[in-house]
């Protein structure tokens, strides 16, 4: 067991899967050089064919991923930033996200679209958005956003081995995050959340960077005698509903925290599910904490203010506990 960065864990997962299966290849923009270092070194070991730089043509590259996956390959398509997936929307929504079903099960699509997602780099609106909620609306697409080095490695390996299209969202702000990563091989099942902190008073559910903000909030609230359970869903679709409902049965209170927007967003989906299926467990109304409904501003101060902060999360927890009068 060694402490490794989130990016190093991504890199290890790619090395291991490419060594394991010759049908795994990496295609995308600047994958040889590895802009975020996640793909660095792969070209040296696997060569031009398996680490394939492409033109900046997200639509065609995303489509090529579909065609390659439908004909026997297991491509990892690196499209760099979550927002760049917008350029590839047609091929993801109309082809990857429907092909197997639309053609009556004639094919399977072992296909991973990998991007950086979310805020934290003061990169402005075009490089800082959280795009997961759009893909959660595509019935046959799996959506993953890990929060730790351990999770990113185990889930990326599982995503590459999965026979369905996966949107794999590495969090932009977490690349340098360090954590324990086992030396021996492991996989994390897609769709399985994890309790990152056990607690009894309130359930806080999140993914990605928000898991860390939620943990910070929980630490702060501990001083007030509030015991918070923090769930990291890890996979946004299919999401671990059972884990959440089980936790709410214990705590009776639910706060959904998401870096995406509130309208039709992940937090709203979780909150609605809890309100619908665990109504009688609830001691207080559910609460959502999401990014403000504006584009992501550039200024570090403003960017920070747009996404949920540990303080806002703590405040939401106090609200559902009735220890704070809502403003």
């Amino acid at each position, binding site marked *: 067991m060694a402490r490794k960065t989130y990016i190093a864990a991504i890199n290890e997962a790619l090395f291991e899967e490419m060594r394991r299966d010759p049908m795994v*290849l990496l*295609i995308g923009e600047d994958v040889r050089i590895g802009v975020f270092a996640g793909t660095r070194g792969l070209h040296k070991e696997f060569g031009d*064919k398996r680490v*394939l730089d*492409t*033109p900046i*043509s997200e*639509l*065609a*590259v*995303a*489509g*090529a*991923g*579909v*065609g*390659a*996956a*439908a*004909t*026997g*390959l297991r*491509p990892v398509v690196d499209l760099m930033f979550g927002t760049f997936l917008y350029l590839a929307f*047609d*091929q993801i929504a*109309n*082809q990857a996200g429907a*092909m*197997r*079903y*639309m*053609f*009556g*099960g*004639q*094919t*399977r699509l072992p296909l991973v679209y990998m991007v950086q997602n979310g805020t934290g780099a003061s990169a402005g609106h075009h490089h800082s958005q959280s795009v997961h909620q759009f893909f959660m609306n595509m*019935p*046959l697409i*799996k959506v993953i956003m890990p929060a730790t080095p351990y999770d990113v490695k185990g889930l990326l390996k599982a995503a590459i081995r*999965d*026979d*369905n299209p996966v949107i794999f969202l590495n969090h932009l702000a977490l690349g340098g995050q360090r954590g324990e990563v086992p030396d021996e091989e492991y996989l994390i099942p897609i769709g399985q959340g994890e309790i990152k902190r056990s607690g009894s008073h309130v359930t806080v559910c999140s993914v990605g960077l928000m898991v860390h903000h939620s943990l910070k909030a929980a630490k702060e609230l501990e001083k007030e005698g509030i015991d918070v359970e923090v769930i990291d869903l890890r996979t946004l679709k299919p999401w671990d509903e059972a884990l959440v409902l089980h936790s709410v049965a214990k705590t009776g209170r639910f706060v959904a925290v998401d870096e995406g927007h509130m309208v039709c967003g992940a937090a709203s989906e979780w909150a609605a599910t809890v309100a619908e299926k665990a109504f009688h467990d609830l001691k207080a109304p559910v609460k959502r904490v999401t990014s403000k409904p504006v584009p992501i501003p550039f200024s570090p101060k403003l960017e920070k203010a747009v996404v949920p902060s540990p303080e806002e999360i703590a405040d939401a927890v106090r609200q559902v506990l009735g220890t704070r009068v809502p403003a």
Partner: protein
Amino acid sequence: MTVTHLPTEKILDLYTRMLRIRRFEEMVGKLFAQGQLPGFVHLYIGEEAVGAGVCAALRDDDYITSTHRGHGHVIAKGGDFNRMMAELFGRQTGYCKGKGGSMHIADFEIGMLGACGIVGGGLGVATGAGLSAWYRGTDQVSVAFFGDGAANEGSFHEALNLASTLKLPVIFVCENNQYGEFTPAIHAMNITDIAQRAAGYGIPGVIVDGTDALAVYPAAAAAVQRARQGHGPTLLEAKTHRRGGHAEGEIAFLAGQDYRLPEEVQAAAASDPVIRLHTYIVEQGLIPPPQLETLDQDITGSVAAAVEFARTSPEPEIASIYEDTWV
């Protein structure tokens, strides 16, 4: 007609593929007019020489992607009448178990990777299939069929650039029927020959008379050979005509508005590819007319049998809406 030295066997192969498409499509038009088919239907009548000429140059293990006007491509590649007709009726025995319909027929066993309801949606997928063949080191090739309308989509330019840069075995076949839906191509682009655009990607751009199967076939065969030998893509522009409109029943939803000049409709009739090849075969004395008549009767009988098969096939079970989702 092109004077040809092709063996009679090949000419008969071309004629058979075309006549199969013609008789099938005539029946589909009739069924649609009778209100027997749900959804939208776009007939391939008038364009048969393109699909037949290109697919006659392919092997069973080569790939094609198609368009919203895709019945002809499925048939030309060797598709099954029964499963096609059943799909058009939305039946369980259809190619896609009733989940695809007219614009989403696929047959992966013969390399037909799917028709596509999005203009330009198949070019990326075909490029990916070409990439797959190249990666696996086979000499398979991949063909993207698309219309003149798709040549104005970003996906066309991205796919041609990607495929030519990587020298992939992809043949881009533009069926220029001179109308994008109801808008003349000359109102949608500042050039008359789409093949000119090949120069922008450093690949051959070839123009053929798309109503002359004896011209399409050798041009396609040359492009296929080039791709098989690793020399990369070709843009093949086949100038052709739709005998009918964009979609069956369009007069009703266009409220009687006319968009084609009578002389154009006459020109399309005068260059009917099936009649042209039939005339050539008879005039050259290649095949005795009674044999052609028997062939026609056989095909017509198969179409009728397909309608019977479709009509007597069960509708899909409601429970099947949850089948063919995730693997």
